[in-house]
């Protein structure tokens, strides 16, 4: 069973905007044309500037070139179809909805580097769940950054969702410990945990995250049920390391790709897929709690080849 079924039909403003403009992008470039080596070079530019990375881009482009040279792909339109199918084949058809525990509470842990969009994403998930009629408890486990607890407290107020807080400077693992207790005692459906931003290169902070995960596991044997890594869609190649190392520390179950409402294409998730097999579950398309959508591979790939700025 999955959450966000209702969200699927929501606004979709971010992606529909880009879909309209799609004709101005790669499709406009290729439509009605005979494919050529030069056009294939052009396609490569789209991949590279979408942050797909040299390695993954080269692989995709070389396979297209082979198809072209052997005559299997000769029209511009066919190239697009071939590309889309190539890119999509990298993402298996998995269930992208958030996990639900068989026994309450479902615990969702949210982590990521500094400024990626974690707290806002927590607010977005909380609102979606609340709107589906689930009871949610927030845990403010970012006890480090100035004003972080206050930031989540404001979301808790605005959304009418309760929150467990720790004092600034408190051990985040102990906040999570208390929050897990509270979630069980209050019988809430979902416990949603916001953590402090940390760089994957900071080993002590990564260990702290592992500890937080373990604290949950001790209280709730099959928890956390969902471990989301929030990635900034503007990230460059370094995000591959982020994903890899966060995954090593806390076994992530899904990626939340934030800030996809800008001009960045978020192509890095294709490169990440080469390293770890974790589905992208949700995308952030703005700063309000409504600005969340389920990840849609088709729409994502369309948007990647769009140039309508």
């Amino acid at each position, binding site marked *: 069973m999955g959450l966000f079924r209702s969200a699927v039909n929501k606004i979709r403003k971010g992606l529909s905007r880009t879909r309209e403009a799609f004709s101005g992008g790669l499709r406009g470039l290729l439509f009605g044309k005979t494919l050529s080596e030069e056009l294939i070079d052009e396609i490569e530019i789209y991949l590279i500037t979408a942050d797909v990375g040299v390695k993954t881009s080269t692989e995709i482009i070389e396979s297209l070139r082979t198809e072209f040279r052997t005559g299997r792909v000769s029209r511009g339109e066919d190239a697009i179809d071939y590309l889309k199918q190539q890119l999509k084949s990298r993402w298996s058809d998995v269930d992208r909805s958030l996990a639900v525990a068989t026994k309450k509470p479902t615990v969702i842990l949210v982590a990521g580097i500094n400024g990626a969009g974690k707290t806002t994403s927590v607010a977005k998930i909380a609102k979606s769940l609340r709107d589906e009629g689930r009871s949610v408890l927030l845990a403010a486990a970012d006890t480090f950054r100035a004003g972080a607890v206050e930031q989540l407290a404001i979301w808790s107020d605005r959304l009418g969702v309760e929150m467990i807080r720790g004092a600034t400077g408190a051990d985040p693992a102990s906040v999570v410990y208390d929050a897990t207790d509270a979630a069980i005692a209050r019988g809430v459906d979902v416990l949603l945990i916001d953590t402090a931003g940390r760089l994957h*290169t900071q080993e002590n902070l990564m260990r702290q995250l592992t500890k937080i995960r373990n604290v949950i596991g001790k209280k709730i044997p099959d928890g956390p049920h969902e471990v989301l890594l929030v990635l900034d869609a503007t990230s460059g190649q370094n995000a591959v*390391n982020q994903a*890899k190392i966060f995954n090593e520390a806390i076994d992530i179950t899904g990626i939340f790709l934030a800030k996809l409402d*800008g001009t960045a294409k978020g192509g890095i998730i294709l490169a990440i897929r080469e390293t770890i097999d974790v589905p992208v579950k949700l995308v952030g398309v703005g700063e309000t709690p409504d600005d969340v959508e389920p990840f849609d591979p088709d729409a994502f790939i369309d948007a990647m080849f769009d140039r309508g700025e």
Partner: protein
Amino acid sequence: MFENLSDRFNNAFRNLSGRGRITEDNVRDAMREVRTALLEADVHLDVVKEFCDEVQRDALGQEVTKSLKPSQEMIGIVHKRLVDLMGPATGEGDTPIMMVDPGPTVIMMSGLQGSGKTTTCGKLAAYLKKRGKNVMVAAADLQRPAAVDQLRIVVEQVQNEAKGNARVEFYGEPDKCAEYGKAVGVAVQVCQRALREARQQKMDVLILDTAGRLHINNELMGELDAVNRAINPHQIFLVVDAMIGQDAVNSAKAFHERLAIDGVILTKFDSDTRGGAALSVKKITGAPIKFLGVGEKIDALEAFHPERMASRILGMGDVVSLVEKAQQEVSEEEAEKMAEKMSKGKLTMDDFLKQLRSIRRMGPMKQLLGMLPGVGSALKDVNVDDKQLDQLEGIVNSMTAEERDDIKLLNKSRTRRVAKGSGTQTSDVGRLTKQFEMIQKMTKQMSGSGMMGKMKAMKEMSKGDASMMPGMEGMKGLPGFGSGRASTKTKSHKSRFKPRKKRK
């Protein structure tokens, strides 16, 4: 994936002997490598293309110096070009923060969401406080929940923790905060009142923290524009996350077109990003890179050095930063003694252990590795296990003082004893001693020679059998072990860089 650029260059030029000219043919191969290196460092594709064309022009027909291999010549050209494009260094040619008289000097921060503006406001305030300037920091982010609180707390930290006696004040109107998108424009009045207050309190500097925004959000970009018109800040800084990818050019361009940026601050450089955004953003805005953010604390602000950035972008490792880190751990005296020992090949196991310990104290190994030449790329597979380093320490600790002084004393029975004492296998001990002898040899070579000799030794080191070293699987040799220390003899940044700068 990406390997050391110098290896790639060697490959590209393998058909060319030590002499002769760099020709179009062999340059083309090399330029492909440069292109890949830059793209993997997140430099924007258009910037990469232009850069490669220019370098190609520079390189063609260059007489290859007898002593240099063409590949080295090419690295020199590429590196120098990068330095030229990214320069100047902080404070070179101008003061990092220009002050007006009479004050207050008004600085406005701008940038995307989460790029580090608020934190950087605190860092700049601390920087100015240390230099005796009275600073007011005003909260003009009325969009992000608790942004005003965040800034207030950051300013309190500066008041309490930063060095210096100058005044640091906070200005905020928390009651003006609104939900996202609803208080657009109010920031203008808040800034005006902040300026009035700063004048009244005779502050030297007023820093305006603005809300993060997308460059394509017209309404919010208009707000920045309005603040700019109403206040006329003396300097507008663009704060950019150093981990940003290709999109850096789009946002930088939009911010620059609206505001005419005076300086760039790149944050989160404490990550393992190669930081190609530095080049992209410099290229787009033309504005100097003023500072680098290297941590979450208020003192984590560093000067920008184009040479180091060029090395980092090319994946050549940031040796200078490593040396600086090492300097904080080891006294000058100690370093001199060590350098002397190394040059004579008299490095002992005790020295080895001492260095190992100070390396460990220096911080997370992976971060350190990223700064070393030749291993930047190996980084992703490196798995440095502190436990294995403990084992290594255990082995050394089980040796007698004589054995540590002269590793050759370790015959079979002694080796067995050491293994037993440290709870390891004799093969572990054997591996360590073998590796140590190699390091001994290489450090000698390194400290004895000039820049070129060092590069050669580095290269040899990077070819060393990494897996031989317990605890350092995948790490090619024990790079930097002592090597940086040897060069601590040169003291200023400038002199350290002379060899590179001079090279044509």
